[in-house]
């Protein structure tokens, strides 16, 4: 592996100062499950890794009924799914963090790292999209909030500028009668990269018949994860039926811009978007009816 320096600052300001000074020769280190392997294999270069895990703000995991969930950027997957309250309130997020890698990866991999790595196939991103997450970004010019669907700008690239880092994700409290689900297609049951991933969330009316709000997010079908508002809008008229799901699935397929690669060709991926969108919606609906 190429040599690099290592720093483990204890405050955000120290981390930002290091990132400003070294510019794009510095990378943040969270769980390391992407960056250590990428640097070792020469796929990313770094003169300095800034380990953020000793900074309190990026380790926050706190739910408040008014403010929602504060999810620190470096919190590893297992802390999220082992928290029973969070598991109940944010089921789409839990689906995603429980299927990243295996147990060993989940001990270290963070949602913040999954997002900042900006892979089009990142599993947590459609889940964050359907839970309406916003990203708290800090840098030399202070703090800004970025909707998660705008965070990735190209494969491997994010909106983060020089000296900026992701501090936490904020997920609003779930709406009444809310359900969400994330699922993906992979050729085996565990330990693989999504060929396609789909997240869906629905919020129902008092009688749990009509959809009052919905979100659909897609992974691995475009250069960045996608929010598909038109597919969600198709769920809004009248009590929910399978034909709403058919329409939403067709619109999600139309929004997908998949490529062909060794995991699957574009036509197969587009087919999967349809199948998985319907499945994600059915489970989200079932969960919404149970709340």
């Amino acid at each position: 592996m190429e040599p690099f320096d290592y720093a483990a600052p204890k405050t955000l300001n120290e981390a930002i100062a290091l990132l400003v000074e070294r510019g794009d020769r510095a990378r943040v280190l969270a769980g390391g499950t992407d960056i250590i392997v990428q640097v070792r294999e020469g796929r990313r270069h770094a003169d300095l890794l800034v380990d953020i895990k000793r900074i309190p703000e990026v380790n926050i995991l706190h739910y408040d009924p008014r403010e929602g969930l504060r999810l620190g950027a470096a919190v590893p997957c297992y802390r999220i799914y082992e928290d029973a309250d969070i598991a109940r309130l944010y089921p789409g997020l839990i689906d995603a963090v429980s299927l990243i890698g295996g147990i060993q990866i989940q001990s270290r991999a963070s949602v913040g790292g999954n997002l900042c790595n900006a892979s089009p196939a990142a599993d947590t991103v459609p889940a964050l999209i359907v839970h309406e997450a916003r990203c708290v970004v800090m840098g030399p010019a202070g703090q800004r909030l970025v909707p998660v669907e705008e965070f990735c700008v190209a494969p491997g690239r994010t909106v983060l500028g020089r000296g900026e880092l992701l501090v936490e994700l904020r997920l609003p409290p779930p709406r009444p009668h809310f359900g969400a689900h994330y699922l993906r297609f992979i050729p085996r049951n565990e330990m693989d990269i999504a060929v396609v991933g789909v997240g869906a969330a629905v919020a129902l009316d008092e009688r749990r018949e009509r959809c009052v709000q919905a979100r659909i997010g897609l992974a691995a079908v475009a250069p960045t994860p996608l929010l598909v508002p038109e597919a969600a809008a198709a769920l809004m008229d009248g009590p929910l039926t399978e034909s709403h799901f058919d329409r939403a699935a067709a619109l999600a397929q139309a929004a997908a811009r998949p490529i062909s690669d060794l995991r699957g060709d574009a036509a197969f991926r587009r087919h999967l978007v349809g199948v998985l969108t319907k499945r994600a919606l059915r489970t989200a609906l079932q969960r919404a009816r149970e709340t």
Partner: protein
Amino acid sequence: MTKKAHVQATVNGQPVEFLCEPRQSLLEVLRDELRLTGTKEGCNNGNCGACNVLLDGRLVNSCCVLGVEVEGCQITTIEGIASPQGLHPLQQKFLEHAALQCGICTPGFIVAAKALLDRHPRPTEYQVRHWLAGNLCRCTGYDKIIRAVLDAAGVAASG
């Protein structure tokens, strides 16, 4: 070459100190600096589990952890699984079930299975297979490994 860092940690209950470059993984530190060669390198990219150790009680791939990150941490390697009285039940059952052939994957499987049994002392077969999905074996076909783990937990395998 970058400056070496001085790191203090606890490995298998013993305090240790070592010098390492930031680019050295915990796996390299264990094997090359501390001479604990029971932990194996398979893929060196997080996929095979041969390098599994417990870091503050959590199962990790030591090839995906930097040596400099473990300052102040507790690490358990395969060398710390047996007791002075003898083999750990998992080790004993791996022998009885012939759950290994070349043996490269075995330390990782045992450490991973130990982490499983620490959390779920009586796992179902599904839980065992799910928990060990991050460990690869090119020899055994897995079935004997699953049976050995279930037997060590005192659970009969299904089918």
